[in-house]
């Protein structure tokens, strides 16, 4: 009997243990289904730690979502959307209507979804949201920052607007003078001469601007086609100096060239244009009478350095990063006075880019400016 009792107790004990185990299993299953957020054991059971570590390695904000709840949010996602999002309703993280609609519905778990949305993190910030189904009914949500792409688009739009604006200013002047001249009685011959001279100046300004715009677009079109000819920079510098002598108004352009050859793989016409733009700038913004130096030097075994140095007022440091932007001017009034198109350095930058080179501008206010271009030497044949 004692044995029987013991057996009964044992069986009862086993049954009780089984019930507890069953209940625990049911609870666990239920919790997994409900995806109770942030509960470490359940995440581990679902392979959550591995997933979490994996997601942490990505810089894009990433979320794992199941049944409307955010299971895992990587650091980038928590930084963008707030630390509170893990474990909460996904709409608390992303409330944009297009996304909320997709994320709140679970049944369309099949196909990946791609949504453009604006205003996560900051008003107007553009994102692309990608939803991909994962095995087991969860979904991976990835956010890709589109600000860079949009900024490039915006730049193009701004460029067209700026170019039209730049052309309109001289055109308005021209039209004004033409209207005045049409009324012959009102203008004496001396004034007429003066007006015509101004008109000629404005017409030249428009032509220069159009020329610059066209060369800029040509250079941009060739951007990925590396130039093939071999160009010696030494005779090129002399040519440019000779061509600019008439407009230098007696100011010396001194050439300091190295001993060795300076052969680069390049487009001769473009390199001449680049140098011309730099020397013209130096002449325009240097002090009257001061000399402009063009220096050619080695910059390592495979590189040639070409610098244009002026003694002038120099440029404040905060302007320097923006100098190669189209139509960026440190002093708009002065640029207009000396006949700048606002495109000179933009053209230089694009020519340098096409030649796989580097452009460095250094300047000290009150002393002068030095623009250095470093180009790779031509491969020895």
């Amino acid at each position, binding site marked *: 009997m004692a044995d029987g009792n013991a057996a009964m107790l044992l069986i009862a004990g086993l049954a009780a243990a089984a019930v507890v185990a069953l209940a625990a299993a049911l609870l666990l299953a239920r919790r997994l289904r*409900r995806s109770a957020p942030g509960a470490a054991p359940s995440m581990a059971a679902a392979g959550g730690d591995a997933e979490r570590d994996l997601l942490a390695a990505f810089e894009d904000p990433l979320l794992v979502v199941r049944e*409307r709840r955010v299971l895992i949010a990587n650091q980038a996602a928590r930084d963008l959307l*707030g*630390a509170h999002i893990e474990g909460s309703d996904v709409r*608390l993280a992303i409330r*944009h*209507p297009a996304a*909320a609609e997709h994320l709140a519905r679970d049944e369309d778990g099949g196909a990946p979804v791609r949504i453009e949305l604006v*205003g996560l993190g900051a008003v107007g910030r553009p994102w692309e949201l990608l939803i991909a189904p994962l095995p087991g009914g969860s979904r991976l949500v990835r956010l890709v920052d589109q600000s860079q792409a949009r900024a490039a688009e915006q730049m193009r739009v701004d460029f067209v607007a700026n170019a039209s604006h730049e052309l309109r200013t001289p055109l308005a002047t021209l039209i004004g003078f033409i209207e005045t001249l049409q009324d012959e009685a009102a203008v004496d011959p001396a004034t007429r001469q003066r007006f015509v001279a101004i008109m000629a100046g404005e017409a030249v300004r428009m032509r220069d601007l159009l020329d610059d715009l066209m060369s800029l677009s040509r250079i941009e079109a060739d951007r990925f086609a590396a130039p093939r000819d071999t160009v010696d920079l030494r005779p090129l510098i002399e040519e440019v100096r000779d061509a600019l002598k008439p407009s230098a108004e007696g100011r010396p352009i001194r050439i300091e060239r190295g001993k060795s050859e300076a052969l680069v793989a390049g487009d001769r016409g473009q390199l001449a244009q680049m140098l011309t733009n730099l020397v013209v700038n130096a002449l325009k913004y240097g002090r009257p009478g001061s000399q402009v130096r063009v220096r050619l030097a080695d910059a390592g075994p495979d590189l040639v350095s070409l610098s244009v140095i002026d003694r002038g007022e120099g440029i404040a440091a905060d302007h320097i990063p923006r100098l190669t932007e189209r139509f960026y001017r440190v002093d708009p009034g002065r640029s207009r006075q000396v006949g700048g198109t606002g495109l000179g350095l933009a053209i230089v930058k694009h020519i340098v880019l096409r030649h796989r080179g580097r452009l460095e501008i250094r300047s000290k206010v009150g002393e002068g400016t030095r623009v250095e271009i470093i180009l790779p030497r031509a491969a020895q044949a």
Partner: protein
Amino acid sequence: MKTNFWPQWLKRNGPAGADPAGGLEEEVDTLRGTICEMGGLAEVAIRDAMEALVRRDHEAAAAVVRRDRKIDALETEIERRVVEIIGRRAPTETDLRDVVAALKIAGVVERIGDYAKNIAKRVASVEDSRIRPLSLLPEMARIAAEMVHDVLDAFAARDPKKAAAVCERDAAVDDFYNSIFRSLLTHMMENPHNITPATHLLFVARNLERIGDHATNVAEMVYFAATGEYLGDRHKGADTTSIGADAIGAGAHG
């Protein structure tokens, strides 16, 4: 380990099985999610309505008006959920504050959606007007939309600091409103033909100003739900700047 083992929703409501629909916390969370969805729709409505106004895009304006129905439907859903939660769960303290705040915020967000809809409805009426304040309106709208955006972020994160910061920007919206008001009045006096479009633009500015006020109201509710204190009380004790005082004033009668 043992404490973590039990799911969150089990803690409050006793053993599993007694509660087939899920826990209170989960229900409150879904409720808050639905409010965010509403808020997202309202934000987009403000943006689209202003874009339609600037571009004179009638179709886009009509779409804003159509989409307002979705906001209304969500408000109804929130009301139903709130009643259900209070009736079945009898929430207390934090949960009760959350639930009541949700009900109130849903009402305010619905109003914000209505103002956006009203702006969209006026797109047709301001046609051909060359009145300059139109350039001030988008800037005013940007600030108002930003307030709505930030207050919804504060709501989602239960962040009282961020909510308080929203109130401080209401003064800027009010300044814009006053400036636009004066300039539109001038236009009306200059030329009687301007009166109709200028009046509509004035209402647009008024709507934006109300959106700003409502964002402030939501901010006060978020603050209360998160801390259990009134935002106004906090200000009264402190050395109030003119900006802070304005924000309270605007909120009190809004």
